């Protein structure tokens, strides 16, 4: 399915379903994400983007299917995966510096933590410098603006050097100017740290600007299960490779690029534009799709 690409697969999602009660949310999701990719995920509100993130994080198990990280089942949340939420990422009772130091110091025993206190501080300060907040280390989260809080949350997650950094609308609550600053800032960090990022947003432009790969999750599609099939959930209906924004900013204003934006908008967000499962725009080299016989009666 993916022989032409030899880069190591970091995340492998196979036939994943997620159901809440009778309601199917994620419907047979297949996905491979390679190391170093900046993946952005878009889709209509309520389609299951955060749910997919929770499954990767291990906060909830899938109803069916497998999620593998470095070839191993993802299991409960652990240090392999970092997370930045739109809110609630910081611990309100700890200062900025303590928030960033928390991860590394949890790894150590009590004695070790005492002994290496300055070392821990220096490391945390280094990361705070990275996010340009080294002068605010002694403040509490409630004393910071929304954008500053999100930068601390990013530093807090980065210091753990997770295999994959998951972000759920991290800039969703910020004003447009701060948001733009944060986007540039995140791209720079991604460049420097060679991270793998999985970035959920409902803003298509943001997704196109940031990602090296964009895919859309949507429940607006058709298949051979019949028009009135009750338990239809969201699938990946569109998957594209993007030129890196860091490499060139201009590309993102070309006609092809605007055409891509329009395609994804239609594929994912338009209620009446129902593509058949066999005709999805799965253009990214890593994308693959295994359909059940029920979904696709067509053989060949």
């Amino acid at each position, binding site marked *: 399915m993916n022989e032409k690409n030899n880069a190591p697969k970091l995340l492998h999602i196979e036939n994943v379903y997620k159901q809440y009660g009778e309601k199917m949310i994620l419907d047979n999701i297949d996905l491979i994400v390679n190391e170093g990719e900046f993946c952005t995920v878009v889709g209509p509100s309520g389609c299951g983007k955060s749910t997919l993130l929770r499954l990767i994080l291990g*906060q909830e198990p899938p109803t069916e299917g497998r999620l593998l990280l470095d070839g191993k089942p993802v299991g409960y949340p652990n240090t392999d995966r970092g997370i930045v939420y739109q*809110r609630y990422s910081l611990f309100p*009772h700890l200062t900025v510096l303590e928030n960033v130091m928390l*991860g590394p110091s949890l790894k150590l025993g009590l004695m070790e933590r005492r002994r290496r206190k300055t070392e821990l501080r220096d490391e945390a300060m280094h990361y705070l410098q990275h996010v340009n907040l080294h002068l605010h280390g002694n403040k*509490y989260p*409630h004393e910071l603006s929304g954008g500053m809080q999100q930068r601390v949350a990013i530093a807090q997650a980065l210091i753990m050097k997770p295999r994959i950094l998951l972000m759920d609308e991290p800039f969703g609550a910020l004003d447009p100017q701060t948001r733009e600053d944060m986007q540039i800032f995140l791209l720079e960090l991604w460049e420097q740290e060679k991270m793998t990022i999985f970035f959920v947003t409902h803003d298509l432009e943001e997704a196109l600007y940031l990602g090296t790969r964009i895919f859309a999750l949507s429940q607006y599609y058709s298949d051979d299960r019949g028009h009135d099939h009750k338990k239809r959930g969201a699938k990946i209906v569109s998957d594209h490779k993007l030129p890196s924004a860091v490499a060139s900013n201009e590309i993102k204003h070309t006609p092809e690029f605007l055409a891509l934006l329009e395609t994804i908008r239609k594929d994912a967000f338009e209620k009446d534009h129902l593509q058949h499962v066999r005709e999805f725009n799965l253009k990214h080299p890593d994308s693959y799709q295994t359909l059940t016989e029920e979904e696709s009666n067509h053989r060949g």
Partner: protein
Amino acid sequence: MSDKPQFFGLHAQPGPYLTWALAAIPFILAIVIYMVAADIRHKENPQDKLLPNLSQMTDAAKRMAMDEDRRSGKILLWSDTAASLKRLAVGVALAAVVGLLLGLNMGLFPGMHVMLASGLTFISMIPPLSILPILFIMVGVDELAKVTLIFIGIFPVIARDILMAVNKIPREQITKALTLGATHLEVAYKIVLPQILPRLLESVRLALGAAWLFLIAAEAIAANEGLGYRIFLVRRYLAMDVIIPYVFWITILGFLFDSMLRLLLKKKFAWYVARG
């Protein structure tokens, strides 16, 4: 906006002096009404005991707070206060610790919740005073019974309050802590516990009123010193001149503890106060 209303209406902004004056009005009113009533009774009978006037009460208060008791050689107000506060402190502290541990562990660990939730609800439904006789029979009439009554009376309330506070902590925070490498115990005692300590202080503040109630009730029934014991003892002689200053003293103590806890909250948990 030059003529901001001082008192009337939705936009009232009482100035600093008026604030003091307004706050004092209910107290002054109560005192005046009492003094007038006492005066009327004293006109009829200068020896009236039911509504003692100010000088009678200060005399009695002075006697209780400064003179040694002839029989025990103790200064009664202080020995009573010490005895009562000791019971109150031990009972409340025990209830706070147990309530905190119960609420925390039940809120975080589903196994604990399943095991303890119905038991806790059951215990909290027992009217504490109704088991006072049982306590006297089982643990005797000395200190332990009083402390136990306070403990049983308030720990379920604190535990349930803490439980609710733990449940309010967003699930995201716990997941976040796990991604930072915290173990389950570290989540409980390093991440969640420090966050609900301020809530514990508030819980204790609210529970203090009930704690006093149980203390006075237990002392009234079986004790040989304590504020509640004294009030119920002198009641036999209709000694209102002692009872009223004692009640006043208890009120001041309660007010003092409440203010202390509030200050502690403000000083030590600024992040909590600021979040509202």
